[in-house]
């Protein structure tokens, strides 16, 4: 037991020896080990989703001064299981004129796209992903989700679904630019694309180096998931449910599970890139502890995501696109440029001075940005509060013109 805590690979070695003793060939043994590992890695998140659904419903309910699920099981903990059973026994309706193969493929891809992020994530020292192109792998795996939405929208043979798919893809594509840009900074600071190296390099968490980048990454990730301030893809009041409008039963459930798991996964990714990943007291000696730390940090970020969801209204599509292209992207470009120039200067200064120099540069960038935004906001024409605003005017103007805003 103690050996396992110190070095989890003894478990793998033990399994390998066991399988070999059963007379399996070396290649087959490896395959079985991969399958077992893959099973563990896929089952963990998929089961965790069931808890996440309960947690999010409960948390959002509390934010809105409601009780949330509280009937099935203690604190309603069994509610998601009841939901799964219910959805499982629902009729699987395939709308007329749907493109069947693609209609089936979409929900599967939507979950697979999220699950595929997991093998790259370093779960602890020597556990989990150790890819030398890890960051690019994450970006590449994300494209699968875009296609899931595009396929769902297109194959449903529904105007709302197609419209939603298009909005969504425009949104995802727009927010991928600042995301990819901002991820350059952890890569630049760690000098590696390997996520394990990025975690190892965080003697001081990167959120101390580049808090603005961490903030941008979080915002952009929320947009990539399509969570509330950016949930135009399922704007109920406009396009009913968006791209999954025609889906029912288990297929619908898969879209839902994919979204919840994605929300948690971005928490984990934020932790890996900016909050030191699995690092924490004792995690170097007991790598299993690292999994716990990573989980806690990821959950904390996930809670923030839920918090934002419960607090903010949806923003309009033109504002959303402007926010990405005209605010986040230039800001991210500036941050990368500043970071690249600065790090050459401060690289020999030791850990904390280097971190603080980066922090100072971020503060300066933030202040300048705020000034620019303020100057821009001052130039905006604004209706004055308290003056009568004509909502709809009759065509031949009989009423005297109310005082205009400016």
């Amino acid at each position: 037991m103690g050996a396992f805590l110190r070095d989890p690979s003894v478990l793998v070695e033990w399994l390998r020896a066991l399988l070999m003793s059963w007379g399996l060939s070396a290649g087959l043994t490896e395959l079985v080990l991969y399958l077992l590992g893959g099973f563990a890695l896929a089952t963990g998140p998929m089961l965790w989703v069931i808890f996440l659904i309960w947690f999010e419903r409960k948390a959002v309910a509390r934010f809105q001064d409601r009780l949330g699920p509280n009937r099935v099981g203690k604190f309603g903990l069994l509610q998601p299981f009841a939901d799964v059973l219910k959805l499982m026994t629902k009729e699987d309706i395939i709308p007329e004129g749907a493109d069947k193969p693609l209609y089936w493929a979409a929900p599967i891809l939507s979950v697979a796209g999220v699950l595929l992020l997991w093998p790259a994530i370093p779960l602890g020292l020597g556990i989990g992903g150790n890819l030398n192109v890890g960051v690019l792998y994450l970006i590449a795996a994300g494209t699968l989700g875009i296609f899931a939405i595009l396929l769902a929208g297109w194959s449903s043979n529904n105007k709302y679904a197609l419209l939603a798919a298009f909005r969504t893809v425009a949104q995802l594509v727009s927010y991928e630019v600042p995301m990819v840009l901002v991820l350059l900074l952890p890569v630049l600071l760690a000098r590696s694309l390997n996520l394990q190296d990025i975690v190892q390099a965080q003697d001081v968490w990167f959120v101390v180096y580049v808090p603005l980048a961490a903030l941008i990454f979080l915002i952009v990730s929320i947009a990539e998931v399509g969570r509330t301030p950016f949930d135009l893809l399922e704007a109920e009041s406009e396009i009913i449910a968006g791209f999954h409008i025609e889906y029912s039963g288990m297929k619908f459930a898969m879209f839902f599970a994919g979204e919840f798991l994605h929300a948690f996964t971005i928490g984990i990714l934020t932790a890996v890139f900016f909050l030191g990943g699995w690092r924490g007291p004792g995690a170097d000696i007991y790598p299993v502890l690292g999994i716990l730390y990573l989980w806690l940090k990821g959950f904390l970020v996930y809670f923030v995501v839920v918090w934002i969801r419960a607090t903010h209204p949806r923003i309009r599509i033109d504002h959303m696109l402007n926010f990405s292209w005209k605010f986040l992207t230039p800001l991210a470009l500036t941050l990368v440029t500043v970071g690249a120039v600065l790090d050459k200067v401060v690289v020999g200064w030791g850990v904390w001075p280097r971190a603080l120099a980066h922090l100072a540069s971020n503060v300066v960038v933030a202040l300048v940005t705020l000034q620019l935004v303020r100057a821009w906001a001052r130039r905006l024409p604004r209706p004055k509060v308290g003056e009568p605003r004509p909502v709809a005017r009759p065509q031949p103007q009989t009423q005297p013109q109310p005082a205009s805003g400016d």
Partner: protein
Amino acid sequence: MNGTQWAFIGVFFVLALLFPALPIVLGHFMGPRRPNPIKNDVYECGLKTYGTPWVPFKVQFYLFALVFLIFDVELVFLYPWAVAYGVLPMFAVFEGILFILMLAAALVYAWKREALDWYEPTMPEATD
């Protein structure tokens, strides 16, 4: 080391497809199946869908995808530069920054030509 990682990802890819596929297939067979023309109809608010769902879309979608494509290609070039950053001399860093400035120029051009603006005929003017 990397070979085994990728072999694992290959196996995991198959599993990642199977994991969501299984409940869907299961649900497909567990649920009742009583289709009728009305139930299978495409959802619409009270009416039958008018025409085909294939309505031509705004050109803006295309422009966003286009600008994104350019950015994507350039950013993939920048990643090796960021990895090599530690061993690069200062002028090489500035070459990368020149590259970033080109990217910024692209952004400024797209911005000034209003390729990044979203127009709705019925929308009050975007507040900028």
